[in-house]
């Protein structure tokens, strides 16, 4: 029983609500909100620390999901007035953190703190409400990353939307905010309805095999593992029956998570949302909320429906991911709105995560997991920088030439170049590790998909460096510069410190990835126990070379 978990969820929630309840007096509570976000960051570091020192995975356990620290009080129990297969439904809710979850908790902590600090400069009106909403979203996100059962996962997953809609609408580009936020809401709801049906399906199926029904991910994953082992031992027919059983659930889940993941062609909510929301808000959405889909796949789809995933969706999603890398990069090149350039670049980068995830082997999934974190940090920094640039130059677009802002704002430009290079996968910075591992994993499954994904490294550099060249380089700055507000200087030292901290995180992971990798290693090792056999049994042609060598 680790009380760090409920504190990490509740602290931002309560402080956010407190600012709201203070009403007009809440204006004075802005420093309190910032302090709360920083305290949550500390708590998330604490979560990472205790996860690192937490319970080690039992190698003989069947479960493919497990937590290093957990919080499951007996009063957190749902009793439904129905019974499934003649058993009353009692669902024990529980929270827990494993390595991947801890990484995402840390990401949430860092990103929220950064967004809160930047909002001091970026948000002109109703700042206290803005910070309160950010804190509430943080709490919901923390809840998702620490849920260890289907019900609380779903509740937090959906609850994130509420503060986000308010954030997009209240502080966005007022003209289009309404339609864009409606689009965002519709897309995500269209995803979550099938998702919840899938969840119910999982709960029902579990009840039919072992009584009573459960929503505990650990138990469910152990069950899926056992089913799969039995099916594999029983021969091809059993395997295909199991695959059919899992498949309808799988497609419902993938539809839900795929929309959040912005998988092609369900990605169009993303650019329109990013384009109207304040870049500060977008930093949170792009870096953490957009990872919810991937996280859901890691947490629920991979352990619970591995055979179903491997049978058809694996190659389909991997191809979609590889196409998204190239497609996103090309579309990014053609945009004139900088926010959309960044939005499509985000789609492109998330393609690497998809490709890695769908390789279903250790390298690829480790790469995807670490890339979730890396991309979160990088994309957050990029949107924060974009916010600063937009504040300093009216009507900034991608089609401008030779703006030369580097001469005026050297700090911002150094940071922008740094994060652009990190995003383009420069070795020694964090983006490289994840992309490399993802591509390695995919090489073992399907080299053709890797060949497409590799192109992303060129295209990513193309639009990234073009942004730098057009906005930062090319003139002395003064001649082409029409400042929005006179006398606004380079980025302030508070902002510089925040971004420099994020840059240090990038360099640390880039130079010594073994540290964070060690944290997610047991989780990946557990997952691989079901995913890799599933992939091998469904695609006997995987690792073609091994077979020709064996002959």
């Amino acid at each position, binding site marked *: 029983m680790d009380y760090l978990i409920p504190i990490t969820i509740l602290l931002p929630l309560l402080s956010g609500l407190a600012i709201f309840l203070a009403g007009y007096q809440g204006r004075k509570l802005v420093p309190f909100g910032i302090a709360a976000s920083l305290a949550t960051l500390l708590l998330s570091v604490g979560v990472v620390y205790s996860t690192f020192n937490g319970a080690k995975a039992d190698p003989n356990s069947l479960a493919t999901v497990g937590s290093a620290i957990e919080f499951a009080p007996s009063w957190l129990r749902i009793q439904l007035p129905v019974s499934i297969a003649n058993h009353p439904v009692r669902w024990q809710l529980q929270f827990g953190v494993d390595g991947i979850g801890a990484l995402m908790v840390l990401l949430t902590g860092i990103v929220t703190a950064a967004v809160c600090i930047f909002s001091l400069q970026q948000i002109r009106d109703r700042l206290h409400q803005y910070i309160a909403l950010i804190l509430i979203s943080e709490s919901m996100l923390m809840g998702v990353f620490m849920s260890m059962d289907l019900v609380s996962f779903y509740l937090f997953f959906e609850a994130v939307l509420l503060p986000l809609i308010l954030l997009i609408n209240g502080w966005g580009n007022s003209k289009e905010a309404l339609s864009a936020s409606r689009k965002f809401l519709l897309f995500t709801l269209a995803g979550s309805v099938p998702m919840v049906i899938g969840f119910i399906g999982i709960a029902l199926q579990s009840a039919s095999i072992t009584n009573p029904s459960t929503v505990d991910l650990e138990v469910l994953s152990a069950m899926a593992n056992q089913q799969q082992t039995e099916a594999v031992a029983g021969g091809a027919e059993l395997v295909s029956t199991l695959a059919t059983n899992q498949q309808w659930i799988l497609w419902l889940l993938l539809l839900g998570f795929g929309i959040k993941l912005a998988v092609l062609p369900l990605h*169009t909510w993303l650019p329109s949302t990013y384009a109207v929301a304040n870049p500060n808000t977008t930093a949170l959405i792009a870096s953490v909320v957009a990872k919810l889909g991937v996280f859901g796949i890691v947490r629920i789809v991979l352990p619970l429906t591995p055979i179903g995933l491997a049978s058809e969706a694996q190659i389909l999603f991997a191809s979609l991911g590889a196409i998204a890398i190239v497609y996103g990069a090309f579309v990014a090149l053609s945009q004139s709105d900088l926010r959309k350039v960044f939005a499509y670049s985000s789609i492109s980068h998330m393609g690497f995560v998809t490709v890695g995830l769908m390789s279903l082997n250790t390298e690829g999934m480790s790469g995807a997991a670490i890339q979730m974190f890396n991309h979160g940090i990088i994309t957050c920094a990029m949107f924060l920088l974009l916010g600063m640039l937009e504040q300093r130059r009216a009507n900034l677009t991608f089609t401008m030439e030779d703006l030369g802002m580097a001469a005026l704002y050297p700090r911002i430009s150094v940071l922008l170049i740094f994060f652009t290079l990190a995003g383009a996968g420069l070795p020694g910075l964090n983006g490289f590790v994840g992309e490399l*591992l993802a591509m*390695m994993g995919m090489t073992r499954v399907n080299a053709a998909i890797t060949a497409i994904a*590799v192109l992303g490294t*060129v295209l990513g550099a193309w639009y990234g460096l073009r942004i730098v060249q057009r906005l930062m380089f090319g003139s002395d700055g003064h001649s082409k510069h029409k400042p929005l507000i006179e006398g606004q200087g380079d980025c302030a030292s508070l902002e510089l410190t925040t971004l420099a901290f994020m840059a240090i995180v990038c360099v640390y992971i880039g130079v010594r990835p*073994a540290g964070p990798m060690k944290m997610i290693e047991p989780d990946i090792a557990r997952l691989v126990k079901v995913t890799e056999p599933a992939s091998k049994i469904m695609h006997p042609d995987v690792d073609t070379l091994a077979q020709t060598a064996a002959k």
Partner: protein
Amino acid sequence: MPNLFAWVVPMAPLVGCIVCAVLSFRGDRKIAHFPAILSLLFAALSSLCLVFFGGQGESGTTTYEGYRYLHVGGLTLDISLKIDTLCLTLLCVVTCISAMIAIYSKDYMHDDPGYARYFSVFCGFVFCMTMLVLSHNLLMMYAFWEGVGTCSYLLIGFWFRKPSAARAATKAFLVNRIADCGFLFGILLLGYAMGQVAGQASDSFFARLNFDNIFTSLPALASQHPDLLVWISLLLMIGAIGKSAQFPFHVWLPDAMEGPTPVSALIHAATMVTAGVYLMARLSPLMEYTPWVLSVVGWLGGITAFIAALMALFQDDLKRVLAYSTVSQLGYLFMALSAGSVKGFMALAVTAAMFHLVTHAFFKALLFLAAGNVMHAMGDVIDMRKFSGLKRVLPKTNLLFLVGAAALAGIPLLSGFFSKDGILAVLYDASADGEYGFQFKVLLGIGFLTAFMTAVYTSKAYFRTFHGTERIPEEAGHHAHESTNVMLAPMALLAVGALVVGGALGPTHILADYLGKSPTLVPHGEHHESLLIMIASGIVGIAGCAVGFMLSKAQPSTRTDGAMAAIADFGKNRLYIDWAYSRFIVLPLEFLAGVLGWLDTNLVDAFVMKIADLPRLAGLLGQRYQNGRVPAYTFVTAVGVAAVAIWIVSR
């Protein structure tokens, strides 16, 4: 002890880089040269110590352990240093020349506002380059391969206020990235294929990308997957020719001259661009299994050497002449490497290439620095049409440039003569081979032709710049003066190198024997010095210089006879290759981007949003019955009640 030296070589520049970076943020600019030069001297001394103390160890190759970078599933990647004589040769060249150029830069860059930034990236480059050279693992090499590319990007765009510099930097990075993308894919495939070699545990797919492991598993790999191996070495070769600016990737190097001249001397002439040659030499055991790829390399090198020399003939910009000359000489190196496709020639080919690489680094760096002196004195004007007869204004530079130019032109008994002759001799020997003999006959012809053209454009550039009537452009003002001694001293050292290194290392077989200590480069057969080739190449060099002298007298603009004018037009416009790339590659891709962008909003999004309209359509169906008229509602209610009643009754 060698362990310490081995780690000092890359770490000293890294420390220098960090210190200078801090200085550039703190604004204490004018002392930034001090940590930079000191750290580079440390690196140079350590690498010389490694040579003297035999850092390669008894067996010819030693790996110095570092730390574990990553261990995931089948991938184990350590950061460790592998030292053998091949890498020590390049290491000494890199560290010594970079130390010289750093000293030169102290005065060259003295009033630049980005003084500390310059030295920071400079040291960062040397760090990456030394790590690249010392890599024990292909993936580690790739990592620092990208690192040198990034430093090159930052230095080409050093004067970022110039639009041309900003564009050139982006272009250089992207062209390199295209090639690196092939390199990376090649590495992935190689790692994958190695994991599949029989007898290896199948759960460590990417563990054995260490060079030693690659070499040991090659025979098995070649017998099991010969086709795949060809693909792999082709992809790796693409990486190599990208970094070394070979056709079709040569377009970035001439543009890279937008950077500060010392940078051009170091990165874009002496060190970074030779990384491709180093990669090929490093992977020579792999390449031996795929002679077809080596033959492709030879053709590409031959084409590059020839077209670059042709373009150099018609350039008016002194630095660009030197840039094209670099491309052309790198083509020479690749021609030499391709001789490895003949059985048993690999060690000879690599030796010849490395020899020319070393001498070229000296005289080309010297030439660039001399061009830098000219630029410095002429107020940043480098167009040869605007100045001439500078021998009185810049007497020492004149002498130094003359030494470099003579070495480049292949005047007998200078460095360039010996090394170029070595390459021609290897090509001549290889042309006796049955399978690839024809290719090497052609390449030998290209080699001689290029040698002649090299002599022509070098002497033409020299005579145009330093002889004839004295003209000084207005930009120079009244202070057209010789450079300071701080700048001239390192050049003098380079000049000594350009004069004697060739004679000292080549005919005495010192370099060949030294490289032969490396286990992958044990020579198989005895190489014959062909006196015929030597005499021929000497004559070609001198004749070329004479032609160049005559050309420099002629007024270039007045000649308009048909064929010559067409060739001159072609040469001036870089054979229209850049134009063709932007027209037929960049433009269509941008068009494709536009099309995809349009489709994304007007097809994908519109389609998905149409689905969102379906509920509304369903609503429209029911809408007309919600008309608010009481009689209609009453009617429906009555029908409903009747229906329920009938259902109850009939049940």
